[in-house]
């Protein structure tokens, strides 16, 4: 019996049109997310992680040349919805987002309380009185003093602004929250506090998370599943227990060994070369040029190999 996943992304593809050709930012990405699960998407900058988040939420720029694939949310296909239905039924109602550099994502001329309340008023038509109560509850939930409701964004510290952005994404009790680099601009202690908060939310509610980050060490704070993206494709998708102990794809192995560790004595390593251009990505495996384990077959497109709960896109495991 096939159980229904909360979110099922199939062959999601997002290409951008530029003067030099089409940029294949997200290329046939598949992944599933279960209720109350957190998936971490890691990869270097420019590998298409943020584009993928935007593709799921359909927050697209004007120069899109191809946008296809299927996304099932609780069994319902949402890619086929028209824009108005998508806005009414999905965006921020079922899937919300904490944008990258959420610290600067707040509107400087609105009071933060009003911004947190806005999704409630827009989507649920809640009247002002109830909204105030709910906003207060949300502020308490994320650990911002309630009297901050009437402040402006510039009056808050970075950590507090991040919490407000999180409150905004929580306001409609969505099923999925997409966190795009939620803590990369914050100090270590604040970062840990935010992750503690995210863990609490995950424990107390049924929310699922998609965490997009390039920081592998902190990503382990929340991860149940890990997806490694490289040049627009997911090259490995594993359970966190497996991934952090023993990554499989050569790129994941390299990426893990490039993380400086506080405890333990291994010297960190770095990956030679740069990711390929996404305008004309190499045929075959896209990591082949930088791969230490390259062999003849790598010039063909590698298949996705499944073992247990884990997927690897590499010829080594055929």
């Amino acid at each position, binding site marked *: 019996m096939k159980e229904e996943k909360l979110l099922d992304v199939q062959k999601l593809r997002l290409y951008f049109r530029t003067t030099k050709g089409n940029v294949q930012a997200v290329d046939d990405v598949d992944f599933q997310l279960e209720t109350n699960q957190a998936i971490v998407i890691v990869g270097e900058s420019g590998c298409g992680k943020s584009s993928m988040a935007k593709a799921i939420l359909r927050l697209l720029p004007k120069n899109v040349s191809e946008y296809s694939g299927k996304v099932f949310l609780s069994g319902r296909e949402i890619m086929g919805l028209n824009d108005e239905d998508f806005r009414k039924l999905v965006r921020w109602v079922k899937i919300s987002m904490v944008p990258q550099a959420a610290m600067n994502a707040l509107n400087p001329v609105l009071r933060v309380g009003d911004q947190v309340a806005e999704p409630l008023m827009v989507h649920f038509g809640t009247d002002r009185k109830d909204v105030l109560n709910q906003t207060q509850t949300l502020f308490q939930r994320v650990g911002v003093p309630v009297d901050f409701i009437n402040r402006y964004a510039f009056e808050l510290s970075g950590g507090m602004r991040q919490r407000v952005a999180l409150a905004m994404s929580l306001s409609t009790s969505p099923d999925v929250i997409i966190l795009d680099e939620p803590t990369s601009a914050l100090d270590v202690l604040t970062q840990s506090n935010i992750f503690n908060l995210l863990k609490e939310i995950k424990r107390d509610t049924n929310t699922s998370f998609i965490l997009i980050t390039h920081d592998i060490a902190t990503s*382990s704070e929340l991860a149940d599943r890990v997806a490694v993206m490289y040049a627009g494709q997911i090259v490995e998708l594993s359970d966190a227990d497996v991934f952090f102990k023993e990554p499989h794809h050569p790129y994941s192995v390299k990426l893990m060994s490039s*993380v400086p560790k506080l405890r333990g004595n291994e010297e960190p390593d770095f990956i030679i070369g740069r990711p390929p251009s996404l305008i004309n990505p190499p045929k075959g495996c896209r990591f082949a040029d930088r791969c230490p384990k390259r062999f003849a077959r790598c010039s063909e497109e590698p298949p996705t190999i499944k073992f247990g709960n884990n997927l690897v896109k590499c010829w080594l495991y055929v």
Partner: protein
Amino acid sequence: MTLSENEKTTPVTSMRDIKDQTSLLSVQDLRVWFELRKFGFAHIGNVHAVDGVSFELGFGESIAIVGESGCGKSSLMKTILGLNKPTGGRIWFDKMDLSTLKAKELKEYRSKVGFVQQDPYGALPPFLSVKGILEEPLIVHGVKSKEERLHRTTKALEEVKMTPVNEFLGKFPHMLSGGQQQRVVIARAMIMNPKLLVADEPVSMLDASVRVEVLKLLRNLQEQHNLAVIYVTHDLSTVRYFSERIFVMYAGQVVEKGKVDRLVNNPLHPYTEALLEATSDPDAENAKVMKKIPSGEPPSLIRPPSGCRFHPRCPKIIMGKCNIEEPPELNPAEGQYVSCWLYE
């Protein structure tokens, strides 16, 4: 307990006399305050950005200054670079007192100190080519011959492993990747053959895969040129590969200093403990436990808390002591200094 341990500040003059010959940089009881004014003239207080910091830096030694944003590490760094005027205390660089330098000597001093900025893209002028960027310091410091400038530019680029050099000389910053931009910044800092390099979070804006590469590059340069390095960061996990000593700063003061290994394995100050606890290593177990992190945020530096500045957040506070009296610098273990009443 001896009497001297109870005294708040260590007598700095004697320290200078001993260390003067051996250290490159000597910072003594440095205070950097910024005045706050109302309506542009009425004095309403000071921001105590750096409040009584002293340390010695030997030739070819590398130290790391760790702390959260707003702890005063950037103010300290800028004062060392001669960009801020200290409110109190002294900085000695190679037997020169920084506060007495005239404009010409200050220019000379700046050629001996290199600066690697945090955001490489912001630090490079967008309208200058790599060649122009690297020539600028040479022109400012009066290298007149074109050939010599080209020679030194080429050499600097080779040192940061941007080869073939000719391919990069004509490029503009936006044509380079983040890692390459940061290399140009390092090459520019190195071009006057400085004795001291101040690196402000040099890798925090870079991708994980390039981060280690740039750190290794910096370490190689340090070893080859016997360069003293001040590495300013908030990321403890990179410190270990780079520096011999760590200084932990909190609210304008150094709360703990010591050898890297000792400090990482055996932190004494509760704030250092918190910093270490907050730094994660990749491990799936992390997701299952909550971290014990003191809540709250660093205090205002306009009216810093009385006593120990960490006491409002400290889990190990001794009431009646920590909140009243400022802790002295204690030396509970060889080569490790801590300002905390717990170790009295």
